[in-house]
């Protein structure tokens, strides 16, 4: 995936800022994010809860609810096969006709809690068919047939029966498959998945991740996948972006980032993942402190209050610029020495995939 050109990019987010303005504070949930989602590839955005990854995902389809607002930046949706000009979603009216024609048809979304994200009083078939009926002239019957096909495609057993049932009669995993079927209804070019596996148990989670991987291969959709789980990133991502307090602190191809994390925060996250084979006496490291109040961000580098390597007089005064340590990689750290950095510091640099047994230490 090193040879991609800009032509592959379907969704290009540039300098996105989404702020939540309340009575006395402005919470800068997303504060200048640049990301690019490529066709047929998965970009994982990873970070702690409250880092703004969810607000970022919702900003793409302009689904941020007041008092939240996209205040700056561009969200360019590139047309299929290079035909026509890209659309800047950030410039559209959030309830207007233009953004509505994008929602569900070109960019679809899957949400975190399948149970509460589906209406409990409408049948599964009704909710899946609805996307189709909104964007295309389709009869009720055709929509239902298509819904059955979609359910089969996301491997729901007994799709013909499930299509007429209500979400509260299904399990969480089934509901998430329904959500995915709903998202696939109009064959979107970009799928935004906001922690789609978080609310599920581990085995179901693995199945859903497999499903995502297959769908990416079969459909060539670009996927923006939000998660807080490094294991999930290892499983599914082509590229990864690490978010902290509204900014992307490090991004790049997943193997490179995992093997050679440049930002102290990325390193800390990777070290905090439990590994098989690690000695029992070895206590899992944690990141000290807690995320600062988002309404009151630290000056300089946002991570410095929790950074073990922070340098006084530097990190608390200067906002770190973006450095490019390698192709496709970007890091925001004042201590990063750029491409010259040869070896990764420390020993805990193995890839925690959750599947392989990594021989650490």
């Amino acid at each position, binding site marked *: 995936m090193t040879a991609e050109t800009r032509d592959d990019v379907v969704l290009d987010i540039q300098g996105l800022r989404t702020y939540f303005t309340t009575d006395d504070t402005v919470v800068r949930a997303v504060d200048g994010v640049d990301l690019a989602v490529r066709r047929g590839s998965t970009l994982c955005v990873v970070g702690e809860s409250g880092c703004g990854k969810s607000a970022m995902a*919702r900003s793409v*389809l302009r*689904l941020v*609810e007041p008092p939240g607002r996209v205040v700056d930046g561009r969200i360019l949706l590139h047309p299929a096969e290079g035909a026509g000009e890209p659309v800047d979603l950030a410039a559209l009216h959030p*309830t207007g006709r233009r953004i*509505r*024609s*994008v*929602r*569900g*048809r070109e960019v*679809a*979304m899957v*949400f*975190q*809690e399948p149970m*509460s*994200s*589906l*209406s*409990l*009083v*409408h049948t599964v078939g009704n909710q899946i068919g*609805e*996307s189709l009926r*909104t*964007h295309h002239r389709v009869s009720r019957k055709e929509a239902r047939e298509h819904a059955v096909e979609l359910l089969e495609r996301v491997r729901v057993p007994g799709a013909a029966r499930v299509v007429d049932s*209500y979400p*509260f*009669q299904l399990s969480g995993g089934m509901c998430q498959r329904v*959500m995915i079927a*709903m998202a696939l209804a109009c064959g979107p070019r970009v799928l935004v998945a906001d922690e789609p596996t978080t609310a599920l148990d581990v085995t179901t989670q693995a199945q859903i991740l497999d499903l995502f991987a297959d769908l990416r291969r079969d459909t060539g959709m670009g996927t923006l996948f939000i998660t807080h789980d490094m294991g999930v990133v290892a499983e599914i991502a082509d590229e990864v972006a690490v978010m902290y307090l509204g900014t992307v602190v490090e991004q790049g191809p997943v193997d490179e980032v995992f093997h050679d994390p440049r930002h102290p925060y990325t390193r800390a996250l990777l070290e905090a993942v439990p590994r098989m084979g690690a000695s029992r006496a070895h206590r899992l490291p944690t990141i000290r402190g807690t995320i600062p109040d988002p309404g009151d961000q630290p000056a300089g580098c946002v991570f410095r209050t929790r950074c073990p390597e922070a340098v006084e007089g530097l990190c608390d005064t200067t906002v770190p610029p973006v450095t490019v340590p390698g192709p496709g990689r970007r890091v925001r750290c004042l201590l990063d020495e750029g491409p010259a950095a040869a070896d990764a510091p420390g020993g805990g640099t193995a890839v925690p995939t959750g599947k392989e047994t990594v021989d650490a230490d």
Partner: protein
Amino acid sequence: MRRYVIRRMLYMVPTLFAISLVAFLIIQLPPGNFLSAYIAELSAQGQGVDNAQVRALEERYGLNDPFLVQYWNWISGIVLSGDFGQSFQYHRDVADLMWDRIGLTLVLAVSTLLLSWAIAFPIGVYSAVRQYSVGDYVVTVVGFVGLATPNFMLALIFAWISYRYFGESVGGIVSREYADAAWNIGKVMDVVSNLWIPVLIIGTAGTAALIRVLRANLLDELRKPYVTTARAKGLPEWRVILKYPVRMSLSPFISTIGWILPTLVGGEVMVSIVLSLETTGPLLVEALRNQDMYLAGSFILVLGTLTVIGTLLSDLLLAWWDPRIRYQHVERV
């Protein structure tokens, strides 16, 4: 679903029995009875009372029988032959007195219900969707005032205004010229033209309450994730709102059928007295005051039964409306 309906209907039987018992208990509660009050009145006027005659009357109405015997005579008469007993005061069959008035009360109740829905639905939705807009504030304040004003006050104010500015005193659902006429188009039109004011007055508090309930529920529902899901599909905003959160928050509307009748009867009593309408209210109050026991007891029984039927209807409608209730009961049965 059918089993749920049957179960729900069987459940009504003990409730109705209990209501009949309570109704009879209530009318037995005051010390003395119609006869003793009547005798006291007669002696106050200086008329002698023949003890033998009193005893004969007591015998005839079974006033000295034990409570349960009296209850049994009353309820068996109603259930077996539709005989609600005699009104002491009017010396007429209770059934004759009652049905006419209950008919009008029902007409009033149903019209008020429909009007409340028609007004509350759009306003409630608007008020929630445009929360904190000027319109929302106006609706909220007006709604609060409507809730806070006893409806007999509204009736009094209305009576005062119409007297003061139109020089006529209000009253009656059926105008004088139609009082004895058979039912025809003219009489119906006349009733309709007289009906809307009491309907408006009685419905005020209920409408205001409905608006508040709908607004609060809708505000809760509007923040639920499934609304965002619907938006993410690209549905137009009005369709998102009407199809999902509004549908979810409409349950209180359906539940109103259950409680609207007792509330209406309550509100209607006061309004009817002020506006002198020929409904159940004034007659019930009079019967209670005069210890006209069979009349009062039958009213309470019939109104209670209507409430129970209303609750049944609203439960069945809710089950039809909300699949969760439907399937929950199917599973449990």
